[in-house]
């Protein structure tokens, strides 16, 4: 695992839509589990993809063991709300008496950001959860977070609640969540990007927005889909056939863009980990294994 993440217990994987957040989060989780850390990977109220990528049956809203040291969950608002309510209220009977009440349901639905809070709350609860022997139930929790705009909203919810909601169970919970999120010893944000102009620019903006608005410092950039240089200028210059030349030029254009993207991202002053573009007919377990190999390779 990349040295920047080694001692972090909470990894938040985010980036522009379509850059491969889930792929990278899944690969990191697999890598973490194999290093002997009990690892939980969380998707946030989405169409579940992690288990599918790993070739496992769907996990759903309950923490499900996938293989040695690896668990997955897709946190959903309804179940998370129920778990949260039970934690605050302690008794199932009170929960059903009160929370099945339509007036109450109405209120809970519209208390701003409560839904996001319970989703995040469930994830962070698992981070604090202990086993009977006092050790953590999970050594590491990895969040496959929403894309840029939604990620900022999602991650700033605890702060928003601390700022806007008067004292009560909700604001107390928001407070510890906020503290945990901004604790750089525990938490690391992993920004995933692609070697194209728009994703790279968005990565720069996201880094800044997380820093300014959520007080979260990113620790690592993963440049996914990197295309290494293959054809030299001399080879291009010598090529006679226009068909072949076009192929070489197209490849060179993409590899140049990869290099330029890398140089731009390096300006952030964070380590940038390259994951070369994977060419694999099926996008599933074998592709993930290739990504894990690339991620681990960088350790050496």
């Amino acid at each position, binding site marked *: 695992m990349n040295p920047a993440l080694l001692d972090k217990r909470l990894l938040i994987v985010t980036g522009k839509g*379509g850059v491969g957040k889930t792929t990278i989060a899944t690969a990191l989780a697999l890598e973490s589990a194999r290093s002997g850390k009990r690892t939980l990977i969380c998707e946030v109220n989405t169409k579940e993809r992690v288990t599918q990528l790993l070739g496992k049956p769907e996990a759903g809203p309950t923490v499900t063991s996938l293989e040695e040291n690896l668990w997955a969950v897709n946190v959903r608002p309804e179940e998370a709300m129920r778990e949260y309510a039970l934690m605050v209220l302690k008794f199932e009977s009170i929960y059903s008496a009160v929370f099945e009440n339509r007036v*109450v349901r109405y209120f809970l639905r519209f208390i701003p950001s409560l839904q996001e809070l319970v989703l995040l709350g469930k994830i962070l609860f698992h981070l604090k959860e202990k086993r009977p022997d006092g050790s953590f139930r999970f050594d590491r929790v990895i969040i496959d977070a929403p894309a840029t705009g*939604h990620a900022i909203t999602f991650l700033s919810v605890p702060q928003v609640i601390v700022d806007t909601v008067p*004292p009560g169970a909700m604001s107390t919970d928001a407070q510890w969540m906020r503290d945990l999120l901004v604790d750089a010893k525990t938490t690391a944000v992993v920004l995933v990007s692609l070697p194209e102009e728009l994703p790279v620019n968005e990565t720069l903006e996201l880094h800044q927005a997380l820093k300014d608005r959520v007080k979260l410092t990113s620790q690592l950039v993963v440049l996914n889909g990197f295309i290494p240089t293959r054809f030299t200028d001399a080879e291009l210059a010598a090529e006679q056939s226009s068909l*072949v030349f076009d192929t070489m030029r197209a490849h060179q254009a993409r590899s140049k863009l990869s290099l330029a993207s890398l140089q731009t991202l390096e300006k952030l002053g964070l380590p940038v980990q390259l994951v070369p573009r994977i060419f694999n007919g099926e996008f599933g377990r074998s592709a993930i294994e290739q990504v894990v190999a690339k991620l681990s390779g960088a350790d050496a």
Partner: protein
Amino acid sequence: MSTPIRDAMASADVLITVGSGGVGKTTVAATLALRAAMEGTGSMVCTIDPAKRLANALGLEALGNKEARIPAETFAAAGLSPRAPMYAMMLDIKRSWDELVERRAPADKREKILNNRFYQALSTALAGSQEYIAMEKMWELHGQAKYPLLVVDTPPTAHALDFLDAPNRILDFLDNDAAKWLLTPALAAGKFGLKLFNLGGSYVAKTIARFTGTETLQQLADFMLNITSLTESFRERAHQTRSLLQAPTTAFVLVTGPMPERLDEAVYFHTLLQQNKMRVAAVVVNRIHAPVPAALWDEVARMSGPLQAKLEQTLKENDLLATQDAKGIERLRELCAPTPLVLVPRFELDVHDLKGVWETSRYLWGDAQVDAAKATR
């Protein structure tokens, strides 16, 4: 010649681009507006969060709900001379909400609403508020009838439903029996700062308060009381946007990429739109990898040495991508039938200037076509 996009433009005055993030949705929205202008139909593209260079290309320097006409020089620089004007606008979420309150709330309630912390959360942080305000803006622009074609780009949704559901969500929020039941005595009393928990049965109230703190509910009640003055107009608007979304003169353009991980989302989105009785004019499959021509394989086969090995590797990779895309396209065609697919190739570099937008439009419009031989192989 009849093509899905031409037909859609001929029959619709509102086109809405939808799809998940990172598929080129905003570019497609800009493309539709540009093509319309070129063909002589004045257009407006309303977008939420365009990439900087595309924004610059459209002459949008900053957010701010300003309608900007794209200057003739900008077109000229790209070698284009549209027959009708094209406008663009970047939506400012927070400001749109404030404008809405200023326009609709009674004078004595405006400040109270704008300063309420719940309102601030609603207008900035609450999930769905972007989607709602985009729908509002669409309605407003459509009502002005200034633009023969309105192209609305939607926020990249994590959940398709957020967007379709937004007007209803807000309406639910404001126009709910439960809320009325809670608030009616207070409304009758005509004052704020009511003791909410004298109303709703103390057991229930106390339990909610354990969650949120009593003060929160108090503030929420204040907010509800003030914003109730807007309920009627929200209700009206929610019904209106809904019927505009379902109107025969409104069409959706679903944008997706050909890669397998995007397909399921696109199909899901498509199903949802249809269930909601909304017309999907076309599914635009963006950034398709071109197939490797047989002649190229032959040429490379005749070569030798390390360069041949590198080229063979490159062709294999390209072929894999093209084959994968072709498979994806076939699946999409099957699962979205009878909605037509419109295929747009992957360009060497990202599209972020008017020239690129114009090039894209040739595929949308049907002047140019992706080599279908491989795509159906």
